[in-house]
């Protein structure tokens, strides 16, 4: 529990936090306007593809987009929380692989689905927390730490399985990856649920405010009595949890868990977060922005597919958008 500031310096720090929160409201308005601008960009994309691509404006097509984006989208939502708190997590792809294998093994061993879900999520949370603890204790940038754990977790996945896929023979598990509810893929519902939950946490809880404070100005946050290390450990644990969920969805969809399964999602997830207006230096970003970033990426991929554009172009366009988003972020920070 956080203690009330009692010393002059602590009171001064608390005032600083109040100032931050006052400034935070301005920042919040800015962030909101960023989200609004992103939504406008998204609407423009929909309009362009709606006119140019046959069958784009159909319910089935938007469900396709949802299905195609939900795995990396779920991972991106967790990465957004970690990044807001000032910790860039690049190990989530390996965490996805580990958790998909762990889940598939438990399914194969006959454990009930609820047990498997909780177990894999706990593994994800622990791996995320390990990132946080190492980064905090060793005082090393989370990017460097998670680059290391990316190799360690990923290496474990290959060592543990001998490179072989692990079957996940369960119809209820498969339903999670392939099933539908009210005509919408279950994985899309899961992404929406996680987005709402994390959006609420970041926007309306003390923990969320501490994430912004720790990411924006860790020294000031620390003076204000916020345990920046703990906040970041928790934020990275959240990133681990979302990676675990994403990993399980891949295994559920495929019916098998492959040790290299999460590697392909690194660029897409980080791109969605950056496009969504989350600053790579922390303290700025919203779940709504990331959600729109996910939709923008998915819609561009889908629209280009429908137009018959080569997938090589898709890669280039995706990379170009990320660079553009980073440039805009830089300009925005220079302006403020």
């Amino acid at each position, binding site marked *: 529990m956080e203690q009330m500031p009692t010393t002059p310096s602590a009171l001064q720090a608390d005032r600083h936090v109040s100032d931050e929160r006052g400034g935070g409201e301005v920042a919040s308005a800015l962030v909101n306007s960023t989200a609004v601008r992103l939504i406008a960009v998204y609407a423009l994309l929909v309009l362009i593809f709606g006119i140019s691509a046959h069958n784009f404006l159909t319910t089935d097509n938007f469900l396709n987009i949802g299905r195609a984006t939900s795995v990396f989208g779920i991972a991106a939502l967790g990465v957004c929380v970690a990044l807001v708190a000032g910790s860039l997590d690049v190990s989530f792809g390996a965490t996805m692989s580990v958790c998909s294998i762990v889940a598939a093994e438990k399914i194969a061993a006959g454990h009930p689905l609820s047990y498997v879900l909780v177990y894999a999520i706990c593994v994800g949370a622990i791996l995320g927390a390990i990132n946080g603890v190492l980064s905090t204790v060793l005082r090393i940038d989370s990017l460097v730490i998670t680059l290391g754990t990316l190799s360690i977790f990923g290496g474990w996945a290959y060592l543990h399985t001998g490179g072989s896929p692990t079957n996940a023979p369960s119809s209820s598990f498969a339903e999670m990856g392939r099933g539908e509810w009210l005509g919408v893929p279950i994985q899309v519902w899961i992404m929406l649920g996680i987005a709402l939950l994390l959006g609420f946490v970041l926007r309306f809880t003390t923990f969320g405010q501490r994430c912004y404070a720790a990411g924006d100005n860790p020294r000031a946050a620390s003076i204000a009595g916020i345990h920046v290390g703990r906040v970041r450990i928790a934020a990275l644990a959240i990133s681990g949890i979302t990676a675990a969920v994403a990993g399980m969805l891949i295994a559920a969809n*495929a019916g098998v868990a492959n040790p290299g399964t999460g590697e392909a999602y690194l660029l897409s997830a980080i791109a969605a977060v950056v496009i969504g207006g989350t600053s790579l230096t922390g303290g700025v970003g919203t779940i709504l922005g990331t959600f729109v970033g996910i939709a923008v990426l998915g819609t561009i991929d889908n629209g280009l597919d429908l137009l018959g554009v080569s997938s090589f172009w898709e890669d280039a366009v995706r990379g170009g958008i990320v660079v553009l988003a980073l440039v805009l972020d830089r300009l925005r920070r220079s302006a403020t």
Partner: protein
Amino acid sequence: MSHNEITDPAVREEVDWTLEAMASGRMTRSQFVRRAAALGLSGGFISSVLAAPALAAGPTSLAQLTKLVYPQGITKATDYNGPNGGSKVAYLPPDFHSGVDSHGIWKWKFENVKAKKNYRFALAHFSAKWDLMVESVARFKRFGQKAGFSVTAFDNNFDADQAIKNANAIAQQRFDFVIMEQEFADANKTIDGILKNAGIPVIYFAVPGPEGALFMDTGNYRMCEAAGEWLGKYAKEHWGGKVDLVLQSAQPRAGAYVGQREVGYKAGIKKVLPHLKDSVFVKFDGQGLLPETQKLAADLLTKHSSAKYILGTGSNDDAGVGIVRALEAAKRTKYAAVAGQAGQASAMTELSKPSSPFKVSAFQDVEAEVWMAAIGLLKVEGGKVAPVNFYPFYLTTKSNVKKFPPQAGTLTKA
């Protein structure tokens, strides 16, 4: 006690070691008899081991070795225009195996050989991150132990530079024979120069070396042509030959040899359904990955929303299953048939489902890959080898999936 009755893993391991030591010549026949008796193995079992052709006869003669490696001999190519075009080829007959071992692995007859001396073979494989490769390495090592030569693995890590570094290391360590598995044809030219300078013979797998170099052609075109033909026949029998769309998940980033797969599928389908226009075939870059293929196939199904009769071809099985997932999501599986390649775990699972549109996979036995080591043995012992070699493929379908042997994860599952 026979080998199968040994339940204690420690004893079993010791027995296996003893058998391998005997097979590789590290242990004499009398030493083996004493050791086997001490381990409690039955007299009948010991006699049967000593009577096995590979053990009883000592080193295999060159004539016998040639007969076991090339049971059909070396023939003049009549229908082959690949690397070393116009040269002679050899085929491993699909039924040149008898029974299965305790792992369920087919016992190929060419494995009943014994080297004259303990040669050192280098296996520079594609990547340890590929489950079939990990299994393949284990199979090569096992064969080497049985036949009396050692196999040292090098990981090319899907990287031309790493493959060249490995070739340098192999040259420096003066191995007797090299099996080179890497995907960049240009790098093979450099590698060939390095190994030629060191005087080490090499066989290239899947992607050829320079003209004249020993080559194991995986027959990408042939096996996918057969799978395509199977799909064409399916469409003819079930849909009266009507096909509105053929989704082809390709791997353009994997080079020209993997690219032969979609060419083969298309040729096979058109062989049966020559009326199909080229516009019906829609090729896309699925990267050999299930999620990427699923995403792109889903988008293409949206684009071609009026297509009713749909065929799908995957550059591998995961890609084939990706098309299946997209068809399922679009609820368009009723008039769909999909083929894959490789006999991966994902395909085996799909083939076991009666209602899945995944119908056929062109499959090659990983154990048959060790034929390259047998060819190497023939080469180092002065025998005549074929410049181009083919090992067989099979079409796995729902009706015959259970008769094929296990692949990745058989010897290597952790």
